[in-house]
């Protein structure tokens, strides 16, 4: 659905303070896929998102959405977008802001009020808040109302830039639920977030961007999963024995100082085999899980 081919983007002119924001990035996003963009600050994630939305033109390379340029109006009619920072008319009441976006999205004026209220309910924004100007909104409320406008008319394409930034734990869970809902109805989602645990919960695939380059791509779900890490926590005294038991089964565990062992696993069955090996060796297992462990992916690259 989305094809990015050899995209490069540089900011600055005449050699002074030139910043290579993207360097020959190529990737594809399949219809219905949820792709996570991860990487350190300044890596080029937001620049890539801006190119995908057609706000920035690549210096080299091309981006198409279903074969069309990303700023084609037919593409935009199917797009929902939540920016990292909601910058809008500060004196505008929240309800008027949502009604404006509802109408821009092609919604009928007669249905605006009902749709605005339904959208507010979906993101847990209380009705009285709709009458208040955006200047009085907290960061979390701005994120919620931003998400509400992005989800208008059930877009096929969703671009979310740090959607849960500044929200409380309930807000984080709510954002996750709305993303999973969009995913369930078949939306194609591109998510830029530093909240790795959330990325892991909703994304089918992640790409790691570093200094403008796409350095790694990992599939997190399904039979094609390329990144699964087993994690078991055992008593510190049993760490050596657990390492030996797992090694005998063909795993390659590495221990951390807190009594945990991490090792690549290919499937859930392999994870079950690892747990059985520990049980047979009579080593108590306090915790066991298989996940993409994106934190580990990050830790070797300078952290989030």
């Amino acid at each position, binding site marked *: 659905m989305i094809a990015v081919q050899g995209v490069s983007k540089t900011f600055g002119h005449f050699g002074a303070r030139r910043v290579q924001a993207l360097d020959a990035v190529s990737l594809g996003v399949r219809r219905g896929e949820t792709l996570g963009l991860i990487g350190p600050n300044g890596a080029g994630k937001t620049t890539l998102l801006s190119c995908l*939305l057609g706000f920035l033109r690549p210096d080299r390379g091309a981006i198409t959405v279903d074969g069309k340029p990303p700023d084609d109006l037919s593409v935009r009619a199917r797009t929902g977008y939540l920016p990292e920072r909601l910058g809008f008319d500060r*004196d505008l009441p929240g309800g008027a802001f949502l009604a404006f976006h509802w109408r821009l999205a092609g919604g009928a004026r007669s249905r605006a009020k009902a749709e605005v209220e339904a959208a507010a309910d979906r993101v847990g924004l209380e009705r009285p808040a709709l009458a208040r100007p955006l200047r009085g909104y907290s960061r979390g409320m701005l994120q919620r109302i931003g998400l509400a406008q992005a989800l208008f008319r059930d877009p096929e394409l969703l671009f979310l830039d740090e959607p849960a930034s500044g929200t409380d734990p309930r807000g984080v869970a709510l954002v996750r639920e709305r993303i999973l809902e969009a995913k369930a109805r078949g939306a194609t989602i591109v998510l830029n977030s530093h909240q790795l645990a959330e990325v892991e919960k909703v994304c089918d695939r992640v790409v790691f961007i570093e200094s403008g380059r796409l350095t790694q791509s990992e599939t997190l779900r399904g039979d094609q999963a390329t990144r699964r890490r087993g994690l078991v926590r055992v008593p510190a005294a049993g760490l050596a024995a657990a390492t030996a038991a797992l090694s005998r089964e063909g795993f390659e565990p590495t221990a951390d100082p807190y009594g945990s062992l991490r090792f690549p696993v290919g499937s859930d069955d392999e994870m079950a085999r690892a747990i059985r090996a520990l049980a047979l060796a009579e080593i108590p297992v306090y915790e066991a899980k298989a996940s993409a462990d994106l934190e580990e992916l990050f830790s070797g690259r300078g952290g989030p």
Partner: protein
Amino acid sequence: MIEMVRRYLRQKYGSPGFLIALGTLALIETFFFAMGSGERFAIVQVAILVLAAGSVSRDVSSGALQMILSRPIRRTEYLFGRYVGILASYGLFLAVTSGLIFLVVHLAKVNAREDASPLSLALLAGEAFANGAFQAAILLMFSTFLPGIADLLGLLVLYVVLHLPPGKSAWLRDAADAARENLLPQVSWNEALRGDGILGSATGRWVFALTVYLVLAAVIFSRRELPYGQD
């Protein structure tokens, strides 16, 4: 486009700061008009600077424009919606100010002037509107690529450059005159609105220059990139 116009009106007339600024200008104009001093409708023309400055650039820097353009909206639709919004808000302001002057001069019987008839006031408002529309087009053009309210500086520089002494050379003088006449044409709107010379060369140059500024604004804006960070 209508959504853009509505948003512009809401932005300006929903902001206490703008309301105070416009109200102050209207009161000062009414005072000088009623006292029979000062240039006619000279003060209210400052309002176009208040209303039009930074009309596009502020949306770019706040990120509001990126959100709007993620919708199925053409850039030109947004841009000309802004322009029509400026004209609508300025027209509303001129109508309210003219009404206020009429009320003060006639109903309150404050030093009634000969030129305070409804027709005279309408002609003055029309003249101010035409001048405002022209300045708004220049500001809009500068606002498509200059940050913040630097479009005001652009307008000032344009006026200063086109009014610099041309030097002694005859061809330089001719070139400067031609540039001034074509880029900042002067139209006697009071006469033109009465029907005198409405199809004259000055009005034609005015229409041409206005079109040039708007087309330039559209060309620059349609090619402009809209970053909101370099992450």
